[in-house]
């Protein structure tokens, strides 16, 4: 139980790390739009 909680806490901390990355913005050029 304690180990499971420890793993869960680690996963939460990993998700909160500032190094986590993702797409911030995309500017999509679209042909044929009117």
């Amino acid at each position, binding site marked *: 139980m304690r180990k499971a909680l420890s793993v869960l806490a680690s996963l939460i901390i990993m*998700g909160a790390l*500032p*190094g*986590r*990355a*993702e*797409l*911030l*913005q*995309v*500017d*999509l*050029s*679209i*042909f*044929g*739009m*009117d």
Partner: protein
Amino acid sequence: MTCAHVVDVALRKVAGVESVDVSLNKGLATVKLKPGNAQSVPQFWELIHKNGYTPKSTAVSVRGDLANVNGQLRLNVSGTKETLTLAANPKNPTAYGEASKKLGQTVTVQGVMEPGKDLKTPVPLQVSQVE
């Protein structure tokens, strides 16, 4: 309902999208994403294609960890399983060199991606700027 509105509505339904701005005059859709999103550029291209339009050159701002894999500069984008291959941008070839000096660091890369014939095929991100 205008064509731009159809695209606007479709983009807003995508998980992780914060805001959408579709410009009729420019033929441009600007999509800002929320932190922790799991989207990729090809997913947006496919969405545009499904709505009857052709995606073209796409300016991308993405945050990730720079790594060298077999001599190739890559950006590991967590939140997705995606690894973007970086390439030099002919308009600013020095930016790629700057990126290669920041291996192991978490950076924000701005660049351009050009969709291939098959929208699902991975394409390199041509680096314009690294911060």
